[in-house]
């Protein structure tokens, strides 16, 4: 059914369609509407799930960890400081191979305190063993949540998935979305059938100690299965298209990249802006393309190298930065392209803390990349820096 609803509502409806057994979350802007909607659905009796109220995100993640360990399908959502507080438990969820889904609403991290959008928070989780998918639109976000449970619970994966959506830009914006019928989602996503679970009749321990003789191998298998999950992300995307008729790419989504001399790589909602910008550039005769990085973990190095093999210039638009290092996606992309492409790769950090990324911002990125700049912040306000 097509509905005009807020992005957060779209996520809540998608999660409800996935029939979670346990939901636990702590409200934090701009994630709040998602969990408000879900708690309302549970309170009204429209969703048969346990909604566990907790005193912190650390506890919310812990409740979910225990729920999945006991064989339940679990869900949570958080953002920014809440995500940072969750991190200890999130590493454990991945390490214990507990498949679940968390919506990582993208928001800047403190300090300074800022509630607006960038992607510094979820990128702090890049090394944790979680898969990460980044959504461009409310529709893609809704679809990704349904796909995410299929991916996470696949025997070949058994790792948690974080669906990342830009705070406010997606969570608080109304879009027309197609909400699938419960029967269609049930057919696509069967009830969770855990490979292992805590069971008093067959006792064992989850998440126990592993010394130097075993830890090394356990961490290797998490890494190996996370890399191999790329194939499952692709399969599930194709199955989703068969079941629901919609396609948003698998691990990457190229837009006008076939003959492009310049390609902008980005994640999340800014890809929509970039497509408009590329259309304008194309209309003006410039061969510009956009490459959406839809699946950031596992990192699709081969697919990116293939998609960018023939272009002359790559511009990575980053809504985060590794302080004292590099733009996070650009650093990984450069490694992926090493020896496989002669394209110049420029890294532009833009839009931190909710700063708008406009057509003028993108023009500046292109201009500076063409001038040979490799790593820079776009849209810096000189007058603000003068005060420093």
């Amino acid at each position, binding site marked *: 059914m097509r509905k005009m609803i807020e992005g957060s509502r779209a996520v809540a409806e998608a999660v409800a369609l996935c029939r979670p057994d346990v939901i636990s979350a702590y409200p934090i802007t701009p994630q709040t509407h998602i969990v408000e909607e879900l708690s309302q659905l549970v309170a009204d009796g429209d969703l048969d799930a346990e909604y566990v109220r907790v005193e912190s995100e650390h506890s919310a993640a812990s409740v979910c960890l225990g729920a999945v360990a006991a064989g339940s399908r679990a869900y949570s959502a958080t953002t920014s400081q809440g995500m940072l507080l969750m991190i200890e438990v999130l590493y454990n969820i991945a390490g*214990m191979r507990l498949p679940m889904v968390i919506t990582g609403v993208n928001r800047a991290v403190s300090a300074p305190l800022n509630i607006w959008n960038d992607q510094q928070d979820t990128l702090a989780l890049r090394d944790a063993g979680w898969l990460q998918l980044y959504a461009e639109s409310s529709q893609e976000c809704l679809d990704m949540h349904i796909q995410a449970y299929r991916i996470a619970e696949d025997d070949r994966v058994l790792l948690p998935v974080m669906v990342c959506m830009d705070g406010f830009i997606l969570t608080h914006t109304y879009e027309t979305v197609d909400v699938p019928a419960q029967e269609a989602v049930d057919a696509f996503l069967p009830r969770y059938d855990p490979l*292992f679970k805590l069971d008093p009749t*067959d006792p064992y321990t989850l998440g*126990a100690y592993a010394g130097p003789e075993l830890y090394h191998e356990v961490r290797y298998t998490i890494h190996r299965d996370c890399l191999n999950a790329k194939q499952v992300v692709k399969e599930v995307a194709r199955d989703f298209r068969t079941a629901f008729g919609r396609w948003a790419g698998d691990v990457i989504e190229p837009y006008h990249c076939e003959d492009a001399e310049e390609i902008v790589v980005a994640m999340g909602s800014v890809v929509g802006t970039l497509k408009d910008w590329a259309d304008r550039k194309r209309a003006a005769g410039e061969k510009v393309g956009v490459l959406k990085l839809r699946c950031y973990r596992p990192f699709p190095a081969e697919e990116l190298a293939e998609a960018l093999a023939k272009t002359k210039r790559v511009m990575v638009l980053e809504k985060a930065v590794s302080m004292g290092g590099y733009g996070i996606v650009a650093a990984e992309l450069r490694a992926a392209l090493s020896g496989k492409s002669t394209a110049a790769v420029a890294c532009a950090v833009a839009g931190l803390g909710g700063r708008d990324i406009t057509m003028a911002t993108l023009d500046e990125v292109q201009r500076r990349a063409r001038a040979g700049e490799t790593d820079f912040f776009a849209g810096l306000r000189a007058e603000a820096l003068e005060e420093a």
Partner: protein
Amino acid sequence: MSASTARGRRKPPLGVITRPGTSLRNKTGSWGILRPVFDWKKCTGCNTCESICPEGCIRHLERKQYEADPEFCKGCGMCAAACPAGAIAMSEEHR
């Protein structure tokens, strides 16, 4: 479905599941530096050392004779500190 009865599916990932009894396989005796030496002449057979040992590795041999299993004793010294008869000394000599 338990880990042992899942059919046609992968095994649980490495390191996820620990079956009961692993503390017997994990021989922690090598962690220690000191080792308790029991003076059976002073021992009163009160059983304090056996009951206080956090590793559960002190064995009661006879009425006033105890010994620590060197494969599991970490040398923490709690038995020596707690012994009311002063019959246990911590020593490096026996390592």
